[in-house]
Every structure is written in C-alpha cells, then in structure tokens.
C-alpha cells in the first residue's frame, strides 16, 4: 500500500451528471466533499432518490465522476479496485450457482485455487450461519438468507472498503435488526471502512460512527454528525438509550428539512 496514512476515501468537489433518455442532463451529485477515515463506519442518509447510490458507484469505480476527484486510499479511482466490496440493494446473488459456489465466486474470479476458495467460502458461510445450506440454490432461501449469502460473498474477498447500498431495505423489520447486528459483528473483526447508504435514520445512527446528511437532489453533503454511542452495540437496545434519542432529534432537524423539500418537489411534479 502506498500511503497508509491517507484516508480510506476522499471525495473532492465531485459531481456526476447523467444523460436522461430524453437527452436532458440530470445532475445526481454536485460538488461533493467527503472524507472517510480508515476503519470508520460512515452512514449516508438523505431523502429517497437524492443521489446517495451514485456516490457509491463513483467510489466503487463502476462509474466515473463528471467533475472533481475520487481518491481511495490516497489514489484516484480508475476502474474497479480489488480492495472493494459492494452489497447491493437488490439481490445480486447468482441464481444458477449454489450458495457455496456464490460465496466462492469472488476468490475464483480473482484466481484463487478452487480448494482454497472453497475453504474460505465455508469459513464465511459458517460465520453467517449458513453452513447447512451450502448446496441450496438462492431461490430456495429466504430474503434474509440471501442477504447473508451476499454478505459472505463480499467479506470473503477481505475488502478494505465496504460499500453498502441500502442493503437491508428489502427485508422485514425483525430480520433487518438481526442483519444489522450481524453486520456489526462481521465488520468488527475486519478493520474495513464502511460506507452505508440508507434512508432509515434509526438504522444509520445505530450502526455508524459518523452520519452524513445529504441534501435533496442533486445531492451534496449538508452536515456531518459524529455518533458517540459506545461499541459494541446491539441495534435493538441502543435504540432505547436517551443519548440515541437526543442524536436522532438533532439529525432529524437537519434531514427532515431535505425530506420536506423532496416531498414538495414530488408534489409539484405530480401537479
């Protein structure tokens, strides 16, 4: 690694615009400045459709910024780095592969020998509690189990940087809390930096060291809040602490305004 002291992610004046099918230019992200330190868990919250996910695709290298710079570990992003893990909102497991084969996919793509890949995959499957399901196909699993497969498939690559795009939003409330706890446990051992995009403020406070509030689209950073709740946390119990409620109120006063703006815009569009 070239620069061990540089932050995990730095966005400097980053903008991203897309051509819409009708030919108009749509700015998803504008003038974004954001720093994520190494080993830090950062949650990004903002109104729906404001461009949070775009930020992640820029960091991952799936998309290139229109303007500005994206640095990962001090180096400009070009293409997809091999230290990155990405958990998608929708199911992105391969339906034609068994659970074990899905988790083996990453190491196999990267040229790890089969036996070693299998060993590492089994290890991670055990950690997410799916050892007895390794021969199943994804369609035979529940939504939560599929998400666990996705987590194992991501963690097996030992990512230094974990990007998560509303990973649990499709799950029911109980499963969601369970998965959040599991994520914290899995993450605790790795020292990876995490950027966790969500529109659920509670989830973001419960998980993160730092909550970044984005403005209504085109997204840019509005405010950054440090969450000083002690770790290790349990998502369900941390929610009940007075400090949690205090933080929640503080951040909501900032986020709520952006949500209102987005809603009014939606109403204007609909009219």
């Amino acid at each position, binding site marked *: 690694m070239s620069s061990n002291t540089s932050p995990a992610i730095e966005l400097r004046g980053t903008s991203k615009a897309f051509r819409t099918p009708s030919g108009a230019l749509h700015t998803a992200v504008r003038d974004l400045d954001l720093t994520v330190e190494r080993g830090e868990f950062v949650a990004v919250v903002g109104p729906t459709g404001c461009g949070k996910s775009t930020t992640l695709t820029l960091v991952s290298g799936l998309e290139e910024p229109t303007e500005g710079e994206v640095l990962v570990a001090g180096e400009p992003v070009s293409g*997809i780095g091999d230290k990155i*893990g*990405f958990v998608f909102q929708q199911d992105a497991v*391969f339906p*034609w592969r068994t659970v074990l084969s899905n988790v083996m996919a990453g190491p196999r*793509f990267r040229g790890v020998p089969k036996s070693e890949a299998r060993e590492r995959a089994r290890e991670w499957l055990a950690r997410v509690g799916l050892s007895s399901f390794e021969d199943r196909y994804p*369609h*035979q699993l529940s939504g939560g189990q599929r998400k666990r497969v996705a987590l194992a498939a991501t963690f097996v690559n030992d990512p230094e940087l974990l990007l998560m795009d509303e990973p649990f939003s499709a799950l029911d409330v109980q499963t969601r809390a369970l998965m959040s706890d599991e994520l914290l446990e899995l993450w605790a051992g790795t020292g990876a930096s995490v950027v966790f995009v969500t529109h659920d403020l509670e989830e973001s406070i419960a998980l993160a060291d730092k909550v970044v509030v984005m403005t209504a689209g085109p997204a840019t950073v509005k405010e950054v809040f440090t969450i000083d709740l002690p770790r290790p946390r349990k998502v369900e119990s941390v929610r009940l602490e007075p400090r949690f409620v205090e933080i929640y109120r503080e951040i909501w006063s900032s986020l709520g305004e952006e949500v209102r703006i987005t809603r009014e815009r939606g109403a204007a569009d609909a009219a």
Partner: protein
Amino acid sequence: MPPETVAVPPATGAGKGKGRAVRTGAAADGGGGGERTQARARAARNHRIVVQGARVLLLVALIGLWEWMARSAVIDPFNFSMPSKIWDQMRQWALHGTPQGSLWEQIWYTLYEALLGWIIGVIGGVVLGIALGRIRFLAEVLGPYIKVLNALPRIVLAPIFLIWFGLGPASKIASAVVLVFFPVFFNAFQGAREVDRNLVSNARILGASNRQVTLQVVIPSATSWIFTSLHVSFGFALIGAIVGEYIGATKGLGLLVSASQGTFNAAGVYAAMVILAVVALLAEGLLSFLEKRLFRWKPVEAGAER
C-alpha cells in the same frame, strides 16, 4: 422484436401431462385435513381420467370418421386415402423396407441431417448472438445485414444449396442451418442484452474480468432465452432437412414423401408424415428432459407444471 424471436415459454406437449398432474397437498393441513386432502386427490384423479378419456375419444372419433367417409366414398379414397391404408403402408415399410431401402435408414438419414444442421445452427446462433449482445460495435455494424438476411424467406435457399452441395446430406444440413440460426441468434442476442445489470456489476466488483462476465454471468442468464428457441428451432431443422430431401435426395423421409407423391400414393405421404411427427415429438421430449436437468437452479413457476 424480430419476427422469429420466440419469447413464449415452451409449450408442454399435450400428451405428457399424466405423470405429475396436480400436486396434492401431501402436507396435510392439520387434524381432520386428511380427509379433505384425500377428497381433493380423488377429484384431481377423476379430472385427469376425464381429460385423458376425452383425448382418446376425440382421436378415435376423428380417425373413425375419416375411415368411414373414405370407405363410403363421401371423400375420394384415392386422393384422401384412409387410416387403415396408412397403417398398412407404415407396416409394409417397417417390415419390408421402402423402395429406396429400409425405413430405419430413411429415418436415420433425415434425423442425422436435421440434428447436424441444428447443432451447427445453434452453435453459430448462440456464439454470434452473445458476441453481438456483448460487443456494441459488432451489433451496430452487423445489425442491418442480419435484418436483411432475416427478411429473406430462407426456404428458397434450399434449391441453391442443392446446386452447391449436391444430392447428399450436405445440402439438407445447410438448409437446416439457415433455418435454425436466426431464431437462436435473436434469442441469444436478446438474452445477452437483458442480463440483470446488478448481476454484472456485482460480478465486476467481485473481481470478474470481461471474459468471466461473459462466460459466467451473461451466458448462464441467457440460457433460458436460448433454450426457448431450441424447442422451436429443432422443428425448423426438421423442416430444412425434409424440404431439402423433397427437392432432391437419394435417401430420407422427404424423398419418401416426394416418391409417394410421384406414384400417387397418398397413403405413403400420410405415413411419412406420421413417422415425422413421432420423430419430432421424441426429440422434443428429449430436449425437455435435458432442460429440466440443466435448470435445476430455477424456481418452479406456479402453473408451469401442470
């Protein structure tokens, strides 16, 4: 969508619904549910018997009507023949051979031409379809030409192939190939285009190279599209082979048809048709079997299995 893209799910052959008709609730729903489950199973079985019976009845009635009309000269038996004559013709061919050799040899010839043409057409269609689906530049350059070729009624190429490749199997294989290629090509192309973008992104993040994305993401997810076209295209391969033989050949079922026609043997034409239908049905069954093995990863769609 181009006219030959076949997006319909393969129709289950009418005759094979008997094996696993209705999945009766094996997991009985609590106490007292056992009786209801049994009643339901009985109703399902009765329904099955009624359907099967009606099918047989319909067939018998149609054949009987044909036979009766021909025998009582309502329709001209010389032109229209009759089922008993067709049966006699088939028996005669099977037991004593056809004018151009044993019946099995004719079947084998046609099957061989169709199969080889089908395999070549499928491989060509899949490879080119995936390549054009993945490589934008190729699709942009070749697109219009493929459209023009597709607009051509390709069966008219059969006489040309006969001139080029002679009376042997090569000309029939060529006609089968051109008939098979296009539906397979369009489906593979569409399949490669419709790959879930999330899966591709995920594979790339996990470290897949472009080649790995093509081989391990695009091709597997296009297989269900491709398989849909395989069912239809085997029929096309048979058509190609038969028409080729009909125009000019030394062996094959198509020659049997044209030879029977030449001697005003209507029963012979029908007999060859029946044999062809049986061969096509068998091939279709084999393909469905292979498909089921290959798609074990797919959820069983509700209603897909009757």
